[in-house]
């Protein structure tokens, strides 16, 4: 980036433009562990500054990469081609919470948990709950279409967006969608932008849908001797016509991990743990919990624990929460995939994964949102052994092939970014990719926004 460009940017941002190596290093990474140094970092405060930046970028041809909290797992916020990182963390106001129309209007830098807490104070609920909700931002959630545990009942970020304000790749400020529940005027540009990973537009404001806060919840933790029995119980619960708000499955590899770090007094023969949460009105919660418990026992649960009060529920969740820290004890480097298969194929997928780990001599830890078929496949490697890394990459490709074969999708909630770009065509086919590229050129003809993402021939290689 030349001096002239920097000084033009400084005219927009003043002190809020950072160009020192130290500041740039701090915006070179995300949770993928990869690093790409930007040429500059700016902290916009409003849509006008973003608009001027993208306009300038078209004039002087430099990449603009929007960034929320940098907590993504697919590299969406990495400046793989340099350019300027627009960190939205200072655009963090909740502009309104409308209790009559059940709508919130927020800036992109609002932390997801902050929004959830603020609407909760008014008896309302913003359901999306990605695991990083304490620090990830709404802007990032929208750009990646974040999911979470409650997706099985409540859906994902996409299901709670009514309208957006965004700066397109041309520097034009567009308003999409509505602030009402219904709206079918023309193409659904809102949904185009959600999950577009910052490649079509930079979201500067979002109108979000809220729902009433469920009045109570109950949590159950069931232990099964095998993955197969656990996976069958998942299907059994669904067949009971109950929709839990969370159904988290940990397979034997994950159970063995947590057994090592914490004394959770699991039954000795535990080969699979299933955590189920039901919510709603108090009477229905109790009834649903009974039926869930019955289903677990029918499918061979060794033990079922249950809690309806906050502290008891918290204790049951401890097992699930201890997985992420525990798996790093297996090996330091985590290759984290988030495939989804139809619920009815879960048992098959788990069997495939355990065979794969054996065949490739790898440590693979699986857990995830079994209620919606979303499994986090974590290939844990030392990071020092080249052969191990090669085997891991082969394994990941096999996992994706199997996923597509079972009628699933290769990314449920992390996005493509750079991490999954090589595999996208496997799922959507050449025509699918081609249509997406044509759309991209409509929104961003000069390829200014977040270049190097999603599409393979532009994808950056690991540094």
């Amino acid at each position, binding site marked *: 980036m030349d001096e002239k460009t920097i000084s033009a940017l400084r005219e927009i941002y003043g002190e809020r433009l*950072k160009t020192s190596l*130290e500041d740039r*290093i*701090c915006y070179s990474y995300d*949770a993928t562990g990869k690093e790409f140094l930007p040429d500059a970092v700016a902290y916009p405060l409003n849509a006008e500054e973003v608009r001027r930046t993208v306009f300038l970028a078209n004039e002087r041809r430099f990449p603009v990469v929007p960034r929320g909290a*940098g907590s993504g797992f697919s590299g969406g916020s990495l400046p793989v081609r340099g350019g300027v990182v627009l960190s939205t963390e200072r655009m963090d106001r909740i502009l309104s919470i409308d209790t009559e129309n059940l709508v919130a209007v927020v800036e992109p830098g609002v932390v997801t948990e902050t929004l959830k807490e603020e609407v909760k104070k008014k008896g309302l609920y913003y359901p999306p709950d990605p695991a990083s909700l304490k*620090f*990830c931002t709404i802007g990032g959630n929208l750009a990646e279409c974040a999911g979470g545990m409650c997706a099985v009942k409540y859906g994902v970020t996409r299901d709670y967006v009514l309208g957006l304000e965004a700066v397109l790749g041309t520097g034009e400020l567009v308003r999409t969608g509505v602030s009402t529940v219904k709206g079918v005027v023309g193409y659904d540009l809102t949904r185009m932008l959600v999950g577009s990973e910052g490649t079509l537009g930079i979201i500067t404001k979002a109108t979000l849908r809220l729902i009433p806060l469920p009045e109570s919840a109950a949590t159950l933790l069931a232990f099964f001797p095998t993955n197969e029995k656990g996976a069958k119980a998942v299907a059994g619960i669904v067949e009971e016509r109950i929709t839990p708000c969370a159904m988290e499955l940990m397979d034997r590899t994950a159970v063995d991990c947590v057994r090592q770090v914490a004394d959770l007094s699991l039954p000795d023969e535990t080969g699979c743990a299933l955590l189920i949460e039901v919510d709603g009105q108090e009477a229905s919660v109790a009834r649903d919990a009974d039926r869930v418990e019955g289903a677990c026992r029918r499918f061979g649960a060794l033990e079922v624990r249950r809690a309806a009060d906050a502290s008891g529920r918290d204790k049951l969740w401890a097992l699930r929460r201890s997985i992420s820290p525990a798996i790093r004890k297996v090996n330091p480097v*985590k290759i984290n995939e988030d495939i989804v298969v139809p619920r009815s194929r879960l048992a098959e997928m788990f069997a495939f994964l355990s065979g794969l780990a054996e065949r490739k001599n790898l440590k693979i830890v699986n857990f995830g949102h079994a209620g919606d078929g979303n499994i986090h496949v974590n290939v844990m490697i030392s990071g020092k052994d080249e052969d191990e890394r090669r085997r891991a990459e082969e394994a990941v490709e096999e996992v994706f092939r199997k996923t597509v074969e079972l009628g699933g999708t290769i990314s449920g909630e992390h996005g493509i970014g750079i991490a999954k770009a090589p595999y996208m065509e496997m799922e959507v086919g050449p025509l699918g990719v081609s249509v997406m590229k044509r759309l991209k050129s409509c929104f961003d003809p000069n390829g200014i926004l977040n270049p190097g993402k999603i599409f393979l021939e532009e994808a950056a290689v690991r540094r």
Partner: protein
Amino acid sequence: MKDDELRALTGACAKCGTCRTVCTLYPERKAEISVARGKIALIDAALEGRDGNLDAVQEALADCLLCGRCERACPNQVLVEEILMKGRADVARKIGIPAWKQVLFGKVMPSPRGREAARAAASAAQKLFAKKIPTGSGLHYRFPEAFGLAGRTVPKLPARGFIESLKPGEAAAGDVILFVGCVFDHVFPRVGRASYESMKASGKPIAVFRDAACCGLPAMVSGDRESSLRCAEENVRRLRAAEAEKIVFPCGSCLLMFKRNLFSLVPEKHPLREDAVWVSNRCEDYATFILESGVVSRLPDPPEGEKVGEIGYHDPCHLSGTLGKGAEAREVLEGAVGSGFAEMKGADLCCGYGGTFNVRDYDTSARIGENKVSLAAGGGTRVISTACSGCILQLRDMAARTDPSLEIVHIAELVAGALSRR
């Protein structure tokens, strides 16, 4: 310190971003360079030789309160404090430590005489240049803006320190050693005295550690490991030779040094390691001693209906957080003031002092501190008690800035007060 050691520590960071949720400084800065993840990336870059400007790196590493929240929240148990202190030392070795810090940490702090002389000089300077102001916690001086002290208030320094005030032969021998700490000896001798008097109520002979060097924490956080090690060596040798049963600390930060940071200075196979472990195992906080030695059970019943719910407890980050000693202090308080104690609003928020941080960025330190004090006062707290010298210095200054009628005390003062009712 070898680069490999540091690299092994930083390698545990998965760059997930959890540290952003708990960082005391992040809401002030709203920039990644202020959180642990960013600082660890900078250290990694420096280790790889990608350090553009070491002064800027040092500046970034210094911009931290070392409150330890990120470390406790970290899902990967990254040792952030250790990494930052080692990082600061590494950079300091390359760019040097400022001359005034070299004299302070290397000459003044390790020596009891040196510190006495320094207090006398500071006391004189205070009378000459600063303006007297009365507050709920006693007389303070407010320095004029021109001094680079930006209008801050500091307590009136006493003519004599606590240890100096002991009679010859008083508190000279005993199974329990009281490690007063520089601030409670020289700046708030009242706290040193209250700790001593209340500990005596245990019935055990108490020896005040007269030849103490500074605990070494200020030097360590400034990246001056050499001076810090000198303090540690002096202290460990003398405390080992004293053969005490227990060593009690009224200051949480001094205790942190002996319970944890000591082992970074004296790693395994260090000739002093065995003695350091011996000493460290006998160190404990003031509240734990008061509880376990039965002083609390011997206190007279607190007066009913006095200051109900007006006395709060501020959790010092190192003591309540890192060392997990928050419950003990509260139990002592309940014994000493009964219904006077109530959980304070924002009790576990960092006071914003951060030792050297308060010197390098007083404005930010004061914003964090004022917020803390205002929150507490808004919740009805009139007396903030705590158990750390840094927190007391900061909270008194913040009270003077926001609500001078607020009282800031050490829990030992409340225990001593309760005893005096006997």
